[in-house]
C-alpha cells in the first residue's frame, strides 16, 4: 500500500493529529457530540472518564473498520459499523461498571449513548472507510483528543465556578454555614454560581469557547 512508503509521522499524518484539536475540532467547529458535552460536564471526573471512553471507542472502531474496510459491502456498511461500535461501547460500559462503579453510575446512560455519538460514526464514514489503519488510528486519537479537550475545558469551568472544586477537591476554600467558619474565598463572602450546574451554562460555555476560538482563528468564520 502507498502509506507503507510514507514516514510514520509525515506532515500529513501529524495534521491528522493536530487538526481536530483546533481547526477542525469535533465539538467547537463541527459541533458534533454536543449532548454528552452538555450532560456530563458538571464535574471534572466524569468528564475525564467520558473523554477516555470516547477516545478508546473512536480509536478502536476506526482501526477495526479500517482493517476490514475492503470486506464490508457498501450497502450494509452502517449496520457493520454500528455493530462494531456497539460491541466496543458495551465493553467500555462493563469495564466501567467493574472498576469505576461510582463514575459509571454518574455517567449513566451517556456511556451507552456513545454509540450514537456523531463523532464516532462521523469518523468511520468520513475517514476510516477510505484510509489505512495507521492513519485511521491517528485520526481517532486526534478526534478523541479534540473531544476530550473541550469536555475537560468546559468541566473545569463548571466545576470550579459551580461548586468551587476540581476532581472533588475544594480549590476555593471550604464553605461552612457561617462566614466566620468558612475558609479561602468563601470567608470573603464568595458564593458558588448555581447557574453553572445547570445545562444551559454548558451550552453557553461551549458557545464562549467557539467565540474565542473563531476570533483568534479568523478562517473558521463562515462567509455568507
Amino acid at each position, binding site marked *: 500500500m502507498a502509506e507503507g512508503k510514507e514516514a510514520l509521522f509525515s506532515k500529513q499524518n501529524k495534521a491528522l493529529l493536530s487538526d481536530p484539536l483546533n481547526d477542525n475540532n469535533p465539538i467547537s467547529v463541527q459541533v458534533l457530540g454536543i449532548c454528552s458535552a452538555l450532560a456530563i460536564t458538571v464535574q471534572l471526573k466524569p468528564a475525564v472518564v467520558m473523554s477516555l471512553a470516547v477516545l478508546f471507542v473512536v480509536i478502536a472502531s476506526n482501526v477495526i473498520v479500517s482493517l476490514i474496510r475492503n470486506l464490508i459491502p457498501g450497502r450494509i456498511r452502517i449496520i457493520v459499523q454500528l455493530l462494531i461500535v456497539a460491541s466496543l461501547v458495551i465493553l467500555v460500559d462493563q469495564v466501567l461498571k467493574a472498576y469505576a462503579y461510582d463514575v459509571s453510575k454518574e455517567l449513566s446512560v451517556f456511556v451507552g449513548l456513545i454509540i450514537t455519538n456523531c463523532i464516532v460514526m462521523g469518523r468511520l464514514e468520513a475517514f476510516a472507510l477510505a484510509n489505512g489503519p495507521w492513519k485511521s488510528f491517528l485520526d481517532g486519537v486526534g478526534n478523541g483528543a479534540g473531544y476530550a479537550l473541550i469536555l475537560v475545558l468546559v468541566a473545569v469551568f463548571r466545576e470550579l465556578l459551580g461548586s468551587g472544586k476540581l476532581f472533588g477537591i475544594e480549590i476555593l476554600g471550604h464553605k461552612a454555614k457561617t462566614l466566620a467558619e468558612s475558609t479561602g474565598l468563601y470567608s470573603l463572602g464568595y458564593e458558588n454560581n448555581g*447557574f453553572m450546574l445547570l445545562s444551559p451554562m454548558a451550552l453557553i460555555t461551549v*458557545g464562549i469557547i467557539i*467565540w474565542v476560538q473563531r476570533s483568534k482563528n479568523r478562517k473558521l468564520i463562515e462567509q455568507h
Partner: protein
Amino acid sequence: MDFLRKKFDEIRKPFNPGGKFEKFAPAINSIDTLMFVPKHNTHKGAHIRDGVDLKRVMVTVIFALLPAMFFGMYNLGYQHFSQLGESTAFLDCMIFGAWKFLPMLLVSYGVGLAIEIGFAIYNKHEVNEGYLVSGMLIPLIMPVDFPLWMLAVSVVFAVFIGKEAFGGTGMNIFNPALIARAFAFFSYAPQMSGDKVWVADASTIDAVSGETILGQLAAGAHSSWSVLDMFLGYVPGSVGETSVLAILIGAAILIATGVGSWKIMTGVVIGGAAMGLIFNALGLNALMEFPWWQHLLVGGFAFGAVFMATDPVSGAQTEKGKWIYGILIGFFAIMIRVFNGAYPEGMMMAILLMNVFAPTVDHYVIAGNIKKRKKRLKAA
C-alpha cells in the same frame, strides 16, 4: 456653554487623531456626545430629519425611570425603618435608600460601560448608547441586599452574552437587563429570593418578615398588604418595581414622547387581566384566588410592561405584532407566576420567552399582510 466646550476640547486633545491616546477615542467621544449635542448632522439622503438620535431616546427613557427610581430609594428606607419599628421620616428614608441604591447604580454603570468601551476600542467603533438604559434598569430590578460583586458578575454576563455576543447595541435578541436578572436568579438563588433579601439588612435582623406579596401567595398565605399600598408601592420588592403610580408616570412620559409603544403596554395589561380572570374562575389556591386586577399591581408586572416589554430592539416591530407580543407577555407572566411557585416573578420569564418569539410574530404578521395584498391584487 462656550467656556465648557473649550475646556472639554482641551481635555480631549490627546484623544484626537494623531494624539497620544488616539486608540481610546471612543471612550472620550461617548462622554463628549453625552454632554454636548453633536455638531454633525446628516448630509445625504436621510429619510428622517430630526434631532433625535439614539442618545436622546435613551435619555428620555432615563427620565421616565426617575420617578420609579426615586420612589424605590424612598421605599428602601421606608421598608427598613418600618420593619425595625423606627420612625419613617421622609428625609431619613431617602438618605438611607440613596446610601443603599447608589452603590448598585455605580457598580452597574461602571462595570457595564467599562466593558462597552473595551469592546468599542477593540472593534474600533464608537461606543453605543444602549447601555445607558440597561445600566439603570439592572439595579432597579434587583433586591436591595444583593451583594455588589454578584451584581457586577451579572452585569458582565449580560453585556457579554446578552449583547456583545450578538453584535452589540441593536443586535441583541434578549433584553440585556433581564438577562442580568435571569443570570442572577439562577446563579445566586438564595440572594435573589426568599423573605430576607427584599428589605435592607433584613438578614441581620431576626424579626423581619420581608416577604414579597407574590412570595406570600406562593407560600399559600394571603397577602397582608392593602391595595393602596400595592398601588403606591409601600411594599417589599425589587428596588424600582414596587410603585405602580411612579411607573405610570414613567409610562406617560414614554407614550407622550413616542419612545415606548402604548400598544405593547396595553397588550400586556389585557393579556395579564385575561389570564388572571381565567385563574380567578378556577380559584384552586391562594395565587389563583388573588384578584386579577391586583395581579397587575404586584411584583414586576407594571415595571416589566412599561420598561422591559417596550424595548424596541428585542420586542416585536410590526404594529399588529406589538399587540400579539404584548398580550402573550401578560398571558404568560401570570401563568408562570401561578403555576410555578418557585418562580414567583413570571414577568421576567415571560418577556425573555417572548423576546425569542418576537421575530416569529413579526414574520407571520408580514406574511399575512403580503397574502392580503396579493388577494386584493387578484380581485382587482
